C-alpha cells in the first residue's frame, strides 16, 4: 500500500535551537496535512498543504510541500518547551477518498 516515511524518529534539541522533520512519499500526493500530538494527548490538526511548492507559516513553524508533491517538511525556528510533542505528517492520494495515511511521526524533546 501507499506509505509516508517520516524522519527522524526522535530529535532532542536545546531550547532555542531549530528543528526540522521530513516526510516522503514514493508517489505523488494530492495533499498533505500536519498534526501535533502532545504527550498523552490526541493528534491536533496544524495545517494542510495542497499546491506544488507551497510554503505556509504559523508563527515559528514553516511548512513546505515539494515541487513534485512527494515530500514535505516542517521547520520550527527557535524551539520552546511548549513545542514538545510528536509531529505527524498525513498524506492523501487521489484514489484514496478522504483517507489519510499517517507517517510514523517525529518525537521532539526540548531541553530547557
Amino acid at each position, binding site marked *: *500500500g501507499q506509505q509516508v516515511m*517520516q524522519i527522524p524518529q526522535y530529535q532532542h534539541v536545546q531550547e532555542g535551537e531549530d528543528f526540522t522533520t521530513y516526510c516522503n512519499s514514493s508517489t505523488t500526493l*494530492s*495533499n498533505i*496535512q500536519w498534526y501535533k500530538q502532545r504527550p498523552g*494527548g*490526541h*493528534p*491536533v*490538526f496544524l495545517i*494542510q498543504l*495542497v499546491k506544488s511548492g507551497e510554503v505556509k507559516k504559523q508563527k515559528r513553524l514553516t511548512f513546505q510541500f515539494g515541487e513534485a508533491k512527494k515530500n514535505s517538511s516542517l521547520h520550527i525556528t527557535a524551539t520552546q518547551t511548549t513545542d514538545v510533542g510528536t509531529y*505527524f505528517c*498525513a498524506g*492523501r492520494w487521489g484514489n484514496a*477518498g*478522504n*483517507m*489519510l*495515511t*499517517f*507517517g*510514523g*511521526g517525529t*518525537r521532539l524533546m526540548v531541553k530547557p
Partner: protein
Amino acid sequence: NAGVTQTPKFRILKIGQSMTLQCAQDMNHNYMYWYRQDPGMGLKLIYYSVGAGITDKGEVPNGYNVSRSTTEDFPLRLELAAPSQTSVYFCASSSSTGLDQPQHFGDGTRLSIL
C-alpha cells in the same frame, strides 16, 4: 460543542473477552474513522465510514468490527481480544464538504489486554 467523545478512557480486558469502544461526534460530520496507535508509533486506520450505513476497511481491520447506524455514532467492536490489540484507540471525524478537510480526534481509549 463537545467535538469527538470517546468512552471509556481506559480499559483492561482479559484475553478472549469482547468489548465495544464508543465514539460520538456532535459536529454533523459524515466521515468518521477509527485508528490504533501502538507505543511510539504512528496511527493506523482500522475502519472508516463516509456516512450512516456505510463502512469500509482500513489498513488493519482484522479482529475488529464497526457499525454506523447514525451520523453521530461510530462504535468499534473487539471480538475475542488478543494481546496484540493492546493499543491506544482514537476515533476521528471530518466534514464531507470537500475532500481536504482536517480530522478532529477524540481523547482516545487506552486498552490493555492481559
